[in-house]
């Protein structure tokens, strides 16, 4: 297993050492040390909550800049469905696609279209005896990492199908090679336009045996600024450009779009990282038995709420609704069987190239020695009793309890508790 490369990072120049991010991190991965926030890479799930919480722009996401792209190559843009919700008064998806071509991309392959194939594949998977119910969507990389780190018993319920952005990269590349026999595979580069840092991390963290079909991941913010210059609202769209995604793929941008498109009654859809954690806890307690499929998105109201998307997610959701109406969007027959043209899908067997090769196995945060950990927790519990229990965060740990364990582990000193020194003084 390779190291997980995080997109979210701290800019120490900007960080003031305040406690805003500390208290908002859902997995308690942040500590303030020497007046600066430090992220524990083993715990971080790249949800971006700290980026949202930071008032000093000190929490940032790394991604490929547009200036990193070599436009002399055959670049294929892979716009996330959420991109289409960023523009006011957008009445045809084609304006965006045209704008991307104007920016210098040679082709556009909509991730929404790939999402429609994922919907198909998921339906096949749910009907196969192999599927462990309730099956949990693996499209949001935050959720996948959260489950792998914290919900050991749910790992085998993740749907083992490639996420839409990855499938889009694969299909875009195959199409370009087919249609441009003069190109060598190295000439073709796929560029995902991402609404969130988690998908950057996902693409940059290549696990053993995994081929990643997304070569670059750019921020939706950056692309948006360029697109605004290139999109021509007043002119008719170039007649040669046609959006290939239908209403199903576009609906993936907002919560319950993915689940509803499965046409399966027993589904649950939730968003917002805290809500998601509650649902996962309930799933682990075995209390949600009547459900077949669970769609979970770290951001609310779905991918449109990602921290790299320029527009307020709720407004973007409304704009997508308007776009669906104004452009008369329909269900496009993007059937996975059309790509397959064979009978490989018979019997509910999903061809291996659509399967996520990074096995969804439990990755304990450390490899704890139980006895040592028990002793540490015992000491920490005793120490926590003596702490002020205000969870103020001034010590640099998110809660008094976390602080106690940090002290026991030698990662903090009791004197860091300001309130306690005051109480004693």
């Amino acid at each position: 297993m390779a190291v997980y490369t995080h997109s979210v990072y701290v800019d120490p120049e900007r960080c003031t050492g305040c406690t805003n991010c500390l208290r908002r991190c859902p997995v308690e991965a942040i500590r303030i040390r020497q007046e600066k926030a430090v992220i524990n890479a083993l715990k971080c799930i790249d949800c971006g909550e700290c980026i949202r919480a930071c008032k000093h722009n000190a929490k940032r996401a790394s991604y490929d800049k547009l200036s990193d792209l070599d436009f002399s190559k055959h670049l294929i843009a892979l716009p996330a469905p959420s991109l289409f919700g960023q523009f006011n008064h957008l009445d045809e998806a084609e304006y965006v696609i045209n704008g991307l071509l104007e920016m210098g991309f040679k082709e556009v392959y909509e991730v929404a279209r790939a999402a429609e194939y994922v919907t198909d594949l998921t339906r096949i998977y749910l009907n196969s005896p192999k599927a462990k119910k309730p099956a949990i969507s693996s499209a949001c990389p935050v959720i996948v990492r959260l489950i792998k780190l914290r919900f050991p018993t749910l790992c085998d319920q993740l749907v083992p199908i490639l996420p839409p952005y990855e499938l889009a990269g694969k299909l875009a590349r195959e199409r370009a090679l087919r249609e441009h026999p003069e190109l060598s595979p190295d000439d073709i580069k796929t560029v995902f336009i991402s609404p969130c840092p988690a998908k950057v991390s996902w693409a940059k963290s290549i696990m053993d045996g995994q081929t990643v079909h997304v070569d670059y991941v750019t921020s939706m913010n950056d692309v948006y600024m360029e697109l605004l210059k290139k999109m021509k609202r007043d002119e008719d769209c170039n007649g040669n450009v046609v959006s290939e995604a239908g209403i199903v793929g576009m609906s993936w941008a907002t919560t319950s779009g993915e689940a509803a498109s499965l046409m399966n009654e027993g589904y649950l859809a939730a968003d917002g990282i805290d809500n998601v954690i509650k649902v996962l806890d309930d799933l682990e307690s075995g209390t949600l038995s009547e459900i077949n499929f669970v769609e979970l998105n770290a951001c609310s109201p779905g991918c449109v709420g990602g921290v790299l998307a320029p527009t307020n997610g709720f407004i973007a959701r409304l704009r997508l609704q308007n776009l669906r109406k104004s452009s008369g969007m329909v269900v496009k027959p993007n059937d996975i069987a059309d790509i397959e043209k064979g009978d490989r899908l018979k019997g509910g067997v999903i061809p291996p190239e659509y399967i996520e090769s990074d096995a969804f196995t439990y990755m304990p945060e450390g490899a704890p020695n139980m006895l040592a950990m028990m002793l540490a927790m015992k000491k920490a519990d005793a120490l926590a009793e003596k702490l002020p229990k205000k969870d103020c965060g001034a010590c640099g740990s998110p809660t008094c309890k976390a602080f106690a364990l940090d002290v026991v582990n030698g990662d903090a000193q009791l004197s860091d508790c300001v309130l306690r020194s005051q109480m004693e003084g």
Partner: protein
Amino acid sequence: MNEALHYHFDVDGANFSNAGRASVETKKLLRQLGVPPEIIRRISVAMYEGEINMVIHAHGGDADVYITEDTVLITLKDVGPGIRDVEEAMKEGFSTAPENIRALGFGAGMGLPNMKRYSDEMHIDTKVGVGTSIELWYHLK
């Protein structure tokens, strides 16, 4: 280590939305300690059932978790009505839960059978009019 790691939880009988909290907290502790996932799953399912039982039938109670290197012991104690016929209560589908509770999706008569199924050993000590005390044992080795 001679002494067990001990955690205590008040199970609030007046509050359905909090039911399940003790089992969620326990699950986190066990994961931190590195207890194997399959055992954690069994514990969280059984303990959740126990908590819900205490909320439905006994206006809450006390949940205690004792962890040693070899065993996890969960005790669930309440001063509720007690169980009149334990053998009957252990039958799947048997329930004395009132209609309004069943309407919420609880009281399917799987509580005690599930707790037994998802534990290595279960001991019930109950007296009508006095209360019920249940021990759930798990062997880690």
